[in-house]
């Protein structure tokens, strides 16, 4: 649903959704302060000789500061933020005196603490062209901002994006594009906690490529890599954007399905069929691939994500033992009774 803020800010809803997706991909909102970003804001503050410097990430209805110098404010409503104006364009936004600017003179940030008078912000532009936030400097006195000062801020803003991008690289398995195990566990734990807190459904699938060692031994490791990539691609194509897939081990993947109950069995079966139907072309050879899957859903008794992973893993082991290329489920007994009824 498009919020009033988006409309008020004049953003096209589709573009705004894409921008937010780009922001959420970094998985950085509400994370603790980090020295890598604090060093950049300290340098911005020093270079512009200003009392405040922030890295503002513009969320749907708020701006949240990943790093802040000279202010204790962690976030503000988006509707009163300067940075929401900055991200609308690809150029810096310079406000020499906010009291003289009709857009800002009545803002609580100007009329009250922190009493912003001068503002300069540079968009944080991702490589695919989304302005996810801004690096900004505020002063409590009106002032002119020179082009040289803006240049420094622009250079520092690029370095902020460098940091964000490198973090992202570290979360993604470079071979398959799936999340790394660590990043998956972080995302999946968040989904688990959310599902527990709000009594929502959650499905989890463990997937293991059958006879993967044999593929490597027969066709070589490049062929094995090709198989891993293709299986990940097949899964991604079949899953929703809200689902989370991670490479859990060598040839093992884990998938979390928010808002999904016993239907995760159908999802697992669809993945199995799609993988079995796909052939991996490698150096004029065609490699047939299959996978075994174990599926489970959140139980009332689950205390942590690992409870679900262990159950899905046991189901996966049964699928392997029963001949591979199949799906086994480990649904909580209460759920099966409910399902049967």
């Amino acid at each position, binding site marked *: 649903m498009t919020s009033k803020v988006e409309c008020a800010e004049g953003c096209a809803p589709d573009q705004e959704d894409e921008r937010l997706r780009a922001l959420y991909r970094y998985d950085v909102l509400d994370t603790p302060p980090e020295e890598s970003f604090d060093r950049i804001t300290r340098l911005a503050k020093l270079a512009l000789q200003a009392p405040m410097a922030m890295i503002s990430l513009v969320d749907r209805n708020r701006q949240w500061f990943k790093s802040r110098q000279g202010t204790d404010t962690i976030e503000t409503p988006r509707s009163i933020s300067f940075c929401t104006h900055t991200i609308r364009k690809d150029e810096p936004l310079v406000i020499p005196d906010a009291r003289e600017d009709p857009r800002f003179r009545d803002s609580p940030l100007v009329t009250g603490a922190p009493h912003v008078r001068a503002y300069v912000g540079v968009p944080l532009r991702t490589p695919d062209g989304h302005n996810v936030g801004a690096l900004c400097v505020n002063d409590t006195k009106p002032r002119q901002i020179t082009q*040289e000062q803006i240049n420094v801020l622009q250079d520092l803003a*690029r370095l902020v994006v460098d940091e964000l991008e*490198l973090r992202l690289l570290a979360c993604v398995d*470079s071979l398959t594009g799936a999340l790394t195990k660590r990043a998956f566990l972080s995302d999946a734990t968040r989904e688990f906690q959310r599902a527990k807190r709000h009594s929502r459904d959650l499905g989890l699938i463990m997937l293991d490529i059958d006879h*993967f060692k044999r593929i490597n031994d027969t066709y070589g490791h490049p062929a094995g890599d090709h198989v891993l990539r293709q299986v990940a691609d097949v899964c991604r194509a079949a899953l929703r954007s809200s689902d989370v897939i991670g490479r859990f081990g060598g040839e093992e993947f884990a998938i979390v399905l928010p808002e999904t109950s016993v239907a995760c069995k159908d999802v697992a079966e669809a993945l199995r069929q799609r993988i079995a139907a796909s052939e991996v072309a490698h150096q004029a050879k065609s490699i047939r691939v299959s996978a075994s899957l174990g599926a489970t859903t959140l139980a009332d008794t689950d205390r942590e994500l690992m409870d679900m992973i262990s159950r899905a893993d046991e189901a996966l082991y049964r699928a392997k033992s029963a001949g591979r290329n199949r799906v086994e489920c480990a649904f909580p007994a209460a759920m099966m009774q409910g399902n049967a009824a």
Partner: protein
Amino acid sequence: MPSEKGQSALARIREELDNQAENAPRESIERHYQNLERLADSLRTLGLNDEQVDSGVMEVFQEYRSRLAEYLATVAQGRGRD
């Protein structure tokens, strides 16, 4: 004109980046180095002294280096399969 100190900081960074492992993300590394070069120039143009430019560039790079090391460790883990 770049200062000797600024040059040496960038030169040290360049050397270190050139010696990164084969599986290092070259695109990210090159982009980061170019951005540091630009920053050094901008800070100098702004009138920061050599020491401030040198330490500013180095400080930013040190954090990137730590993140890069984490990334390479993750890649190394991901490649280990039976």
